């Protein structure tokens, strides 16, 4: 009776592999069959859980910006970074990317912003939109004393000539007032000259700062800088309350309009600099997917061929377990979901090769046990093949556990290194090793025991090399 249940289990397992295999098949492969019914069916069962592909497989841009937080107090850094993220998120959303990623990353003492835009058509425009955001800043004149000190350090560092150059022009130092406090910016025209200029309106906090700033700078210049370039430096005539200011300069109407729009879209709370950029063309991703499917397929076939050639029936059973393992892992990738990158796929394919290692250790043990029984060693001469299989499994286990543990340790360390390529690889390899231990220890054992009880069990030669 029990054996019937076991065989039902085997059939169920095979069915699971077949169905699961169809489920995890990538859509591009199913399309090749050119059968509309099959394709429709595949879309129905697999379409709701597509693989989530990394940037390197679907093309896109990966950008890392470093944020210059030197002008902000340390305890406000986190808040400033969150503000920066929100502003950039808004800009990126304007661009219409499906699932943009905008992340803050802490690196030692500083902060970075990671932006990932998948499947983007025109990366150039996106970078412009993020990067060319104006950084608005008001600066006030240095006092005579500060100026002297500044010139001194300048002379020390760059020589007298450079210092001379700056001697006769006003020098500015940063203030607290930046684009952070901007409520809105708009195009306006000077009533007397009819030249275009930009009107600025600060929020409550900004208005207060602006009032103080103008109060202490009456009779001096207050410079407006955009992206570290001086735009205008009007002389303050009186204290200005109400939080309104004006940028005048040599603008054309177009320029003034664009500047106002960019300032409105959210002046960045902190200046940023692009430090890493990766563009991957979408067609390169397609080639990579195709190539890795071929590599995986060839690898799998080689493994199955090798296992059956060496271990015969055991090899066939191991191959079934391997297929189960592959289907299991790919389904996990779909359901968790794990973002697949090229390195991740490499990790997956490599884990196939490592997954059969456990089987090899078990089969070699079994071979030893069978050969010992043949020699009629008293202790095991009466044991059935099923008993020997149990012994082989329990004796091979410590080596399998230890071996996988060391690889898992490395995966863990690799994952902590936190670099895209390495993380993808470590994640899939790690999940793969855990899953493969299950498939080798549980599935292979179940299959071997079931077959050992059948007439196959009497023919020990087909179980070993």
């Amino acid at each position, binding site marked *: 009776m029990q054996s019937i249940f076991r065989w039902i289990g085997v059939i169920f397992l095979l069915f699971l592999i077949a169905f699961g295999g169809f489920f995890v098949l990538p859509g591009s492969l199913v399309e090749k069959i050119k059968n509309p019914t099959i394709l429709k069916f595949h879309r129905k069962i697999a379409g709701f859980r597509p693989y989530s592909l990394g940037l390197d497989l679907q093309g896109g841009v990966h950008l890392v910006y470093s944020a210059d937080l030197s002008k902000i107090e340390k305890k406000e850094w986190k808040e400033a970074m969150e503000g920066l993220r929100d502003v950039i998120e808004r800009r990126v959303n304007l661009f219409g990317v499906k699932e943009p990623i905008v992340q803050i990353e802490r690196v030692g003492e500083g902060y970075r912003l990671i932006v990932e835009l998948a499947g983007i058509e025109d990366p150039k425009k996106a970078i412009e939109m993020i990067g060319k955001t104006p950084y608005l800043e008001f600066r006030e004149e240095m006092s005579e004393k500060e100026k002297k000190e500044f010139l001194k350090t300048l002379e020390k560092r760059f020589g007298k000539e450079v210092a001379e150059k700056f001697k006769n022009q006003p020098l500015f130092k940063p203030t607290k007032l930046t684009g952070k406090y901007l409520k809105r910016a708009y195009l306006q025209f000077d009533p007397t000259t009819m030249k275009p200029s930009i009107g600025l309106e600060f929020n409550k906090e900004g208005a207060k700062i602006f009032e103080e700033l103008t109060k202490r700078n009456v009779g001096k210049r207050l410079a407006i800088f955009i992206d570290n370039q001086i735009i205008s430096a009007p002389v303050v005539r009186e204290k200005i309350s109400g939080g309104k200011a004006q940028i005048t300069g040599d603008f054309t109407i177009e320029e003034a309009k664009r500047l106002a729009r960019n300032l409105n879209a959210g002046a960045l709370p902190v200046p940023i600099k692009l430090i*890493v950029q*990766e563009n*991957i063309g979408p067609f390169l991703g397609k080639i990579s997917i195709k190539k890795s499917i071929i590599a995986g397929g*060839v690898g799998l076939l*080689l493994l199955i061929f090798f296992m059956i050639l060496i271990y015969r029936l055991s090899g066939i059973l191991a191959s079934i377990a391997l297929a189960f393992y592959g289907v299991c892992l790919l389904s996990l990738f779909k359901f968790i979901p794990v973002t697949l990158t090229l390195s991740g796929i490499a990790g997956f394919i490599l884990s*196939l090769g490592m997954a059969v290692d456990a089987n090899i250790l078990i089969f070699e043990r079994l071979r030893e046990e069978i050969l010992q029984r043949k020699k009629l060693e008293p202790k095991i001469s009466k044991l059935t093949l099923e008993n020997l299989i149990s012994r082989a499994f329990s004796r091979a286990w410590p080596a399998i556990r230890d071996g996988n543990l060391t*690889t898992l340790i490395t995966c863990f360390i690799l994952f902590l290194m936190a*670099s895209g390529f390495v993380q993808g690889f470590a994640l899939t*390899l790690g999940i793969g090793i855990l899953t493969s231990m299950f498939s080798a220890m549980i599935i292979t054992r179940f299959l071997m025991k079931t077959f050992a009880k059948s007439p196959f069990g009497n023919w020990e030669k087909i179980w070993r090399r």
Partner: protein
Amino acid sequence: MDFLKYSKIYFIFSGSLILASFIFLLVFGLKFGIDFKGGSILEIEFVKKRPPLSELRDLLQKQIKKEFIIQEAGKKGILIKAKEIDESLHQKILKALKKKGEIREKRFEMIGPAVGRELKRKTLIALIIAFIFITLYIALAFRKATFLISSWQYGLSALIALFHDIFITCGIFALLGKFLNIEVNIPFVAALLTILGYSINDTIVVFDRCRENLKKRQEDFKTILNISLSETLARSLFTSLTTLLVLFAILLFGGETLFSFVLTLIIGISLGTYSSIFIATPLCFLFSKKKVK
């Protein structure tokens, strides 16, 4: 089979490999790529036919007045490398190249020098942590193995074998960097760490068998080591072989992006299999001989 009879030959062979690697690393050094150095790479494919490189070089020099390193990549592609290419320069290059025929941009990477330095530091830390963990693990795994030679001597043998694998792999890459322009990037380090974790397995399988045999048999240490080696030889070879099979599949069919990563793994894992049989075990024997004296 008497594996240990030729121990001297193995040691001389591996010793000279290590010496050669040392010289390569000293003279050529590893050729670090942009992950560590910072810099830019632009890969472009000409849809129809690739113009001669010298023509492209002249074109870029005239149009942009900057020196670039230009290499062939694949059948129709080129690689352009420079210290730092920002977005506007990137667009200028594309515009200039378009005059020579229809192009497709495969990838563009720019990594700032600060990021490279930081990555170097990070990977160094990772390597050290990995080494500590593996050493701890070995100490733990062999804490009960105190027969004939003490447990730390087993651990030391395994560690020397690991060092042997990693060092020679680095040496080979110094050579490949010099003559084939293969660069060392983050994937190389990932591969080294994977080798660390994987190569130790074979050594553990052999040592485990020694421990078992020493309990069962009464022969001398040398015979026990030989028996253990021949009993585990097949599984050491087969487990590495299956892993190498899939790696070769990726090497041949997986495309150029993964090429050097997989090549590192293949070299390291092959060395690991060799060293667990021909270095780690003979070292154990060497330690035991010293003790007898």
